[in-house]
């Protein structure tokens, strides 16, 4: 049941307005930062206020001007979109707090530009979350690529320049070269671009053509970092750490996998995925990414690089959920959006805290640092447990559901992949924490705990990961709702 | 064959003139010669139009009046078609104007480069 509401547009417009406010107050840093916080809270409030309605089963709609015949700038808040928007907006608050600490400690330049484009990026992310059709999603997808470019190239040195080029080449190259033709073909075949539970492509074209369109989508949504379209993510690590956390947890890659899920679930639909064996294709295709990502992560010494490859691997778990195309599997995949977000952002916050405090970037240099920065490293430890999927951290639930989902659709090889990957995750995360606390090092005599504003956010998100284990409640309900709406029962 | 050439000699003349003009515009290196070629090109087209106005045995398109200043009935085939002539008046004006602009630009070029030979100018530009 759908009700009209202006809230989706409000949620997006709030941070657009915020961008203007931030630029207006560029000469007054404290007021500027305050603007960011107020806007972030208001945004979260608007999004949270939509929760009761969606949990009760209705969807909020807002249709704006028609952009193409029959396809307009349309917004639709359903359980999947609301889940993603909640994650993004809540983590924006945490990231903003962290940014203040990080940027001020390092006395970074061009902070106004940073905060302004951050707000713009969040608008785009929520725009993708609430998009009611593929065109609106594409619009905000591109807006996200463009608004994150200045963030990725923030340091404006030659490394940043090349990272920026790679970023754009991968993301815009795939979106214009593959995603756009896929959208046009979808429109051409089915005459509409709206997301519906039954999918819009049933019987619209030959099986081969539909498979081609599907492959175009998978290749075209570069933000999902599915191999081989993954190399932009490690390069983007030259950005300041809050930007990396934005990329990995809050917005960019989540937008990618969210879009892939939307395509799998609401454009093609689980039934069509089964019929065309697209789900099998997808499962095996992303299994490669899952395993390779973890293997590459093992080799990295730079902490942020290791985290980047870990993300590449974990993102494909979410796509895997879509590929399993069964109720439990889909629930697991969607839930992993939440769990991974909170877990990963904790890890990035800690990496940044270490950098701010000691200037260290490589894991081999971080032996024994836990004794001097116990809070930070404890948060790191809990974050990594969540990613590995060990109770009592929230990540356990998503992996549990994914594993059960594999069994439900009789995909045992995939279950093996999941277990292997979890082992690999442990292999590349646990040594970091172990060495931080128990290895011998004497070089940190001067080091104290990191600045407060860079420590509070990771502690907060680690706590949330723990709470999510005890009360996966809201997010689990939203994820289940999505799956049930698709498959019934 | 003779029919083809002799019967349509006006077209042949205009085409030959047009080709001469075209050759001059492209093949000659002196810029004044190019302008002259352009002129010949445009003139050939004017010739073409005039030639299609002509009718065998027809006279100038001025209506004769009878004694009491009433215009006589007009027999169309006795008067050549005035419309192409009128159109070409306009075209001649355009041709002259283009000629004027072209020569003015040539003066600018001469002042700048001191020569009106295209290859010399290109050498000066490249250096």
């Amino acid at each position, binding site marked *: 049941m759908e009700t009209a509401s202006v809230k989706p547009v409000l949620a997006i417009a709030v941070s657009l307005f915020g961008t203007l406010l931030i630029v207006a107050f*560029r*000469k007054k840093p404290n007021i500027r930062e305050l603007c960011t916080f107020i806007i972030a809270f208001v945004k979260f409030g608007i999004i949270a206020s939509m929760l009761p309605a969606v949990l009760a089963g209705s969807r909020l709609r807002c249709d704006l*001007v028609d*952009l*193409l*015949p029959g396809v307009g*700038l349309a917004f639709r808040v359903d359980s999947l979109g609301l889940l993603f928007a909640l994650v993004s907006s809540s983590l924006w608050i945490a990231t903003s707090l962290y940014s203040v600490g990080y940027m001020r400690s*390092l*006395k*970074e*330049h061009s902070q106004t530009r940073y905060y302004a484009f951050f707000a713009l990026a969040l608008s785009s992310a929520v725009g993708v979350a609430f998009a009611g059709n593929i*065109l609106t999603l*594409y*619009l905000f997808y*591109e*807006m996200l690529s*463009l608004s994150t470019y*200045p963030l990725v190239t923030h*340091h*404006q*040195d*030659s*490394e*940043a*320049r090349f990272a*920026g*080029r790679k970023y*754009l080449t991968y993301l*815009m*190259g795939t979106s*214009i*070269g593959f995603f*756009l*033709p896929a959208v*046009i073909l979808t429109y*051409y075949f089915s005459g509409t671009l709206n997301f519906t539970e039954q999918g819009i492509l049933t019987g619209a074209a030959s099986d081969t053509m539909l498979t081609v369109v599907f492959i175009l989508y998978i290749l075209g949504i570069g933000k999902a970092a599915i191999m081989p379209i993954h190399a932009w993510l490690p390069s983007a690590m030259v950005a300041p750490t809050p930007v990396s956390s934005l990329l990995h947890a809050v917005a960019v890659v989540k937008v990618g996998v969210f879009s892939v899920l939307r395509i799998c679930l609401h454009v093609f639909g689980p039934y069509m995925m089964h019929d065309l064996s697209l789900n099998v294709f997808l499962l095996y295709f992303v299994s490669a990414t899952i395993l390779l990502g973890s293997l590459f992560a093992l080799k990295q010494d730079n902490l942020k690089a290791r985290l980047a490859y870990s993300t590449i691997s974990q993102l494909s778990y979410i796509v895997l959920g879509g590929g399993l195309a069964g109720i439990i599997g889909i629930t697991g995949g969607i839930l992993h959006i939440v769990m991974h977000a909170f877990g990963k952002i904790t890890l990035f916050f800690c990496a940044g805290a270490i950098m701010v405090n000691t200037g260290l970037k490589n894991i081999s240099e971080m032996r024994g640092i836990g004794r001097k920065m116990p809070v930070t490293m404890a948060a790191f430890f809990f974050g990594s447990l969540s990613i590995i999927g060990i109770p009592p951290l929230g990540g356990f639930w998503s992996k549990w559901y994914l594993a059960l989902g594999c069994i439900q659709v009789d995909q045992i090889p995939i279950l093996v992949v999941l277990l292997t990957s979890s082992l690999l995750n442990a292999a590349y995360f646990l040594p970091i924490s172990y060495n931080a606390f128990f290895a011998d090092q004497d070089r940190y005599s001067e080091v104290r705990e990191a600045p407060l504003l860079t420590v509070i956010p990771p502690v907060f998100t680690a706590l949330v990961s723990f709470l999510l284990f005890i009360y996966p409640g809201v997010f689990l309900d939203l994820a289940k709702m999505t799956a049930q709406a698709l498959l019934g029962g | 064959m003779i029919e083809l050439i002799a019967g349509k000699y006006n077209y042949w003349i205009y085409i030959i003139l047009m080709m001469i003009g075209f050759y001059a*515009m492209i093949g000659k290196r002196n810029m004044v010669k190019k302008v002259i070629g*352009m002129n010949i*090109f*445009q003139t050939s*087209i004017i010739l*073409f*139009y005039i030639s*299609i106005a002509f009718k065998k045995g027809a006279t100038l398109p001025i209506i004769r009046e009878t004694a009491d200043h009433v215009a006589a009935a007009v027999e169309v085939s006795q008067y050549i078609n005035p*419309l*192409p002539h009128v*159109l070409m008046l*306009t*075209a001649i004006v*355009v041709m002259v*104007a*283009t000629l004027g*602009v*072209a020569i003015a*630009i*040539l003066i*600018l*070029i001469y002042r*700048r480069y001191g020569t009106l030979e295209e290859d010399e100018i290109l050498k000066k*530009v490249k250096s």
Partner: protein
Amino acid sequence: MKEHAPVLIVVFPIMFAFITPLLGWIRKSLCYPWVILALSLSTICSLITLEEVMTGGVIHYYLGSWLPPWGIEYVVDHLNAMMLVIVSGAALLVAIYSRRSIEAELPGKMVYFYTIFLLQTTGFLGIVVTGDMFNLYVFLEIASLAGYTLIAIGEDGAPLASFRYIIMGTVGACFYLLGVGYLYMVTGSLNMADLATIIPLISDSKVVLTAFAFFMAGIAIKMALFPLHVWLPDAYTRAPSTSSALIAPLMTKISVYVMIRIFFTVFKPSFTVDVLPATDILLWLGTIAIFGGAIMALAQTDFKRMLCYIVVAEVGYMVGGIGVANSIAMQGAVLHLLNDAVMTLGLFIVAGIVTYQMKGHLLSDFNALFRKMPLTMVTFVVVALSVIGVPPTCGFFSKWYLLQGGIMAGAWGFVVALLLSSLINIILFFRIFELGYVFQSDGSHHDHGHGGFIHEAPASMLLPSVVVALGILAIGIYNQVIINNIITYVIPKF
């Protein structure tokens, strides 16, 4: 008064042009407001005409009350009406922008420049509004001559570029004239609507075919269709900023408009698409133009020259869209007439602003401009995104229709060319963004602060730029309104 609006659109600029030298003799500074007045009146008349066409249908205006086919007739249907608004609006914006630019680049020549500026606009408007074939030639030559003059007074190398343009442009116009002559020879009429009824009766005549061929060749030269585009880069690069800002957005689009008129109004679609493979040829030429323009643009180090090759590629979009010959692609091509005029206008105005500020228009002149001229650069970003084809700018939508039409017709070369040129445009423009952004090579964190030389463009130059950027967004978001109310009536029945 309202019923005379079609002719007033042309009358205002030409009458005002004659009075401009007088005014300039009295006082030079009067010329600028005079020109703005002339073009504002013209724009208002265009808007009135557009509104009348949208409510009442096609307008027929008989000059001197002589009925067609003997008299000259002005016919305004939805296509013209839209083009009239585009041309007069663009000319008005350029006029507003022009004052500082002329002062800087052409000191002392303001009076004569504005006179010829108005004559140029008259020519453009006349081409668009007329319904008579020879009248179109007259206005075409008025526009071309004014163009040759406006271009020749530019920077070093401009007279040479203009001279080459004269040679090629005259050949083009003469071919058009030949086409008119051949048609007249067998039909006895110069009126477009009249010709449209007569030609189907004689459509297997060789004379008609010859006429068609001459038209195509002549218009192709004026339109800078690859490979007859060689006059364009030099001419538009060397011209003064105002001249290129006026001529570049309009001349090629008006020539595309003339092609649409000749191909679909005078010669019916049944002739153009079925009897001749004209649209197939156009499709291939358009595709090659897109590739050629995009690749050449990559090689340029001069910003304005790069823009010229982008113009060549954009002409390829429109010509290819017409060549696909189905209604969706045609919709895209006509929408692109509007979009490209606006986008090119924006690009050349930015080029003019950069030339004014940095005294040069090389790519390297864009160094650190995001810091020095933030507002100008923001409008530049919007225009660039439109050229690349990012929603919700207008460029995305015309590309969408062209792509959709191409896919529907199976014109895969054209589809690939469109996508590839979008990707190349990303490279072209992000190269400039990188330059504007300032990347140090030493990796140090400078505190850039807010001091340092922020030298934004003057208001008279900034205003048109902002209007264009807003227009691009508005046209994009409301493109359905424009299509449903104007463009649907323009599409010929294939």
